């Protein structure tokens, strides 16, 4: 075996990693991922604000629409009740008037 081959053999010799190598690699990957994620959000602050405002406007519009619908339903029901009351009042007044007329004739 010539010296070159000896060098090559030494260089390519299987070497066991130091204890905790895999754990250190995984920890570094996690830190890297977090940094990347944070960087992507913090790099778009206006988008974050816009989305926040849009969400708030959506919630307010939704609540207002629902409130309007409930109020409209209550108003329509109240209106119908007024009609029922007036119809009954009218019918009984008519009955009274008919009786008075009939008796006076």
């Amino acid at each position, binding site marked *: 075996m010539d010296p070159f081959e000896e060098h090559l053999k030494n260089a390519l010799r299987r070497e066991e990693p130091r204890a905790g190598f895999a754990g250190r690699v995984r920890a570094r990957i996690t830190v890297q991922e977090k940094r990347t994620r944070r960087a992507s959000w913090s790099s778009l602050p206006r988008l974050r604000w816009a989305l926040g405002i849009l969400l708030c406007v959506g919630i307010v519009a939704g609540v207002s629409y629902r409130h309007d619908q409930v109020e409209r339903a209550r108003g329509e029901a109240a209106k119908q009740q007024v009609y029922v009351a007036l*119809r*009954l009042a009218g019918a009984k007044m008519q009955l009274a008037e008919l009786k*008075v007329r009939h008796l006076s004739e």
Partner: protein
Amino acid sequence: MKRIYAVALVVLTATLAAQGQKIEIPSSWDKLAAKADEVDNVTLDKSMLGLAAKFMKDDNDQDSVQINRLLGKLNGIYVRHLEFKNPGEFTEADVEPVRAQLQGPEWSHVVDVNNKNSKEKVVIYMRTVNGKSGGLVIFAEEPTELTFVQLDGSIDPQDIDALSGNFGIPKDVHTPKANPEKPNGATAEKP
């Protein structure tokens, strides 16, 4: 101290009297309602009348304008109407408690129709507080129907006249004016 309480009580009583008087319908009517074929139950206080008026404004026709004017004067509308399949479902004990509440000095009969043949009785009561109108009650007993309508507020018979021709109110109906000195108005009785 007692005098202060007495004055406060008088003021409170006067305020309540001015605000209106809701006639209590006896609980026996709830049992009658279970037997009835048709039941109408309307309870509209001032806030609900305001809401109804708001939605009537949207209709924007002449009737709605007149009803709105009427609603503006009212503190409440209370209706109980029961319609039965057969006669004799209700008794005097069911109606007397209502009539009893309409006997005070503030109440006067403006129309009193009592037909004993057809067993139909319609009385229109008018409430007068300090010379001003304080409301109207129409109480009708028929063989198969029992109707109570209270329009609480400073309603004038002219307000009803304004609605004549609509809602079954005759075109030429003229409800007599309440006269505090002469408690009973038109009275017709047929034996």
